[in-house]
């Protein structure tokens, strides 16, 4: 593993020298803080309906305007960050656990467990993700859980495949053979030798993945199977705001901008991390 050869102090030094990583990290931190402190930061109750102020443009009453039910857009954005990140992090955790476990098992065992896992991966890959999501949404009914389950279904094979290929090359490393020679049992080899050595490419992938998951949630919302009311989500806000793009652009714009900037943040962070963690990076 080439990525393995970076010390901790070097990491921060390289990190601070990578424009992408720093800008990305700043954006991600802001969004994450907004999500965590949504209850404090949101100026109003995001569900508060004010039928007399529907589509109120940005101004004193509502900093970023109000939506079709007169709810405060800024508050909904902040709470929306919460939902987006909740979905993203849940999906990531689930897919990482499943994907990494199965990927490691596949690579370690070779033989039939490998075939079984990789054929399953092939099948899932061959299903367009929207169809998977639609099917799951149809089964579970639309909602946060659906989005999480659907996106997890879509995402784990990628992680499993990546883990498998990383581990396949790792298991040729001498230190793995050394561990076997020392009498280390397989589960411990996976846990102590494989995992720490694949974690950084996984982190890179995860950080880029977060952006895509947030976007995927938005797309599912657009197709009507995303996270449901009363939970505000960016995707839902964009969907609701798009028809009114000309008469009242503030809703769609605010949500699109938040989504876009967050995507940019995670992507830059991921790209930056890739450069930072690659010892033969551009610099």
């Amino acid at each position, binding site marked *: 593993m080439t990525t393995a050869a970076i010390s901790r102090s070097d990491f921060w030094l390289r990190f601070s020298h990578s424009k992408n990583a720093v800008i990305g990290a700043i954006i991600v931190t802001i969004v994450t803080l907004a999500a965590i402190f949504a209850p404090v930061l949101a100026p109003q109750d995001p569900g508060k309906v004010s039928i007399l102020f529907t589509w109120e443009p940005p101004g004193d009453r509502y900093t970023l305007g109000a939506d079709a039910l007169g709810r405060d857009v800024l508050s909904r954005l902040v709470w929306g960050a919460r939902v987006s990140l909740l979905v993203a992090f849940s999906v990531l955790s689930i897919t990482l656990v499943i994907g990494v476990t199965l990927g490691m098992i596949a690579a370690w065992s070779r033989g039939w467990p490998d075939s079984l896992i990789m054929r399953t991966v092939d099948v899932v*890959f*061959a*299903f*367009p993700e929207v169809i998977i999501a639609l099917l799951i949404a149809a089964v579970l009914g639309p909602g946060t859980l659906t989005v999480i389950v659907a996106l997890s279904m879509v995402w784990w094979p990628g992680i499993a495949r990546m883990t498998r290929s990383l581990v396949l090359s790792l298991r040729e490393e001498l230190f793995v053979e050394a561990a076997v020679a020392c009498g280390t049992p397989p589960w411990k080899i996976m846990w102590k030798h494989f995992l720490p050595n694949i974690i950084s490419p996984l982190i890179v992938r995860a950080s880029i993945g977060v952006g895509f998951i947030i976007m995927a949630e938005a797309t599912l919302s657009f197709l009507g199977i995303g996270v449901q009311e009363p939970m505000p989500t960016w995707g839902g806000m964009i969907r609701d705001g798009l028809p009114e793009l000309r008469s009242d652009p503030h809703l769609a714009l605010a949500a699109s901008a938040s989504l876009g900037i967050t995507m*940019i943040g995670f992507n830059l962070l991921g*790209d930056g991390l890739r450069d930072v963690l690659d010892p*033969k990076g*551009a610099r």
Partner: protein
Amino acid sequence: MPGYIARRIGGLLFIWFVAVLISFAALQFVPGDPILVLLSDQSGDAALEARLRADYGLDRSLPLQFIDYIGSIADGSFGLSYRFAGREVIEIIEGGMWITPLLAITALVIAVPLGVFLGIAAATRAGQLADTAIILLLVCGISIPNFALATTLVWLLSIKAGLLPVAGWGSFSQMILPVVVLTVPPVAYIARLTRSYMLEVFEKDYIRTARAKGVRDRLVVWRHALRNTLVPLLTSIGIIFGGLLSGSFVVETIFNIPGLGRIAIESIFARDYPVTMSVVLLFTVFYSLINLAVDLSYALIDPRIRLQGQSA
């Protein structure tokens, strides 16, 4: 080689079968019985309901229904649509069947060279301002949701400027906007991949060898480096194609293109399961065929792979 292809095709048949099985099974759990959808307001009428169930063979056991469906695939009709009384599924999907892959492949054919070009432009300027600018542009490219991009483009180019038709299918001008919207994310993705693969290849010993021979910088990049990045790039073509197929759902809806993506959404919402299953199967078929093509084309690009396929 023929043995290899036979084995691959066997694998494909298996995947297709599993795809049908999974979609069939999944649809059993979907709330919103197709018959209830047909009945709509009349869903209190038990006699009518029973009659309809019998008409569509839904009163039979699940294994029998599944066998029926497989049989209908074999005879090419793909079963009867629930939504369109008396119509075979093939009639409903045959119009859209080629539209979605056509769109996806067109987008791919544009995206790959463009993305590679941008990626190389960034890689050869690694660390410079131009590199940062290109990366930023690319990240923006993937960060704009396709439905937002589509809406904006329609407003600017079709309504304001009147240059292109808003929607529909059939003429070349109607293809432009959907293809552009579909192309943006893969361009960005391919460019970023190309950039990182290029940077990796630039470190390779054979690049140094080429320079030591006195080969011009431009040739070093385009001749010696590029071809070595194509193999890993090809690997991601499958994923990109999958993304394009998924993208077709939104793009076909917004641009009102009667392709498989729109048919899929309509049929799922209308609980027209035979159509849904057939569309799922077709998507799976397209996707796995592209992957097969990709695998076969490795050998064209990288001679090492050809030898492994033959002698080993």
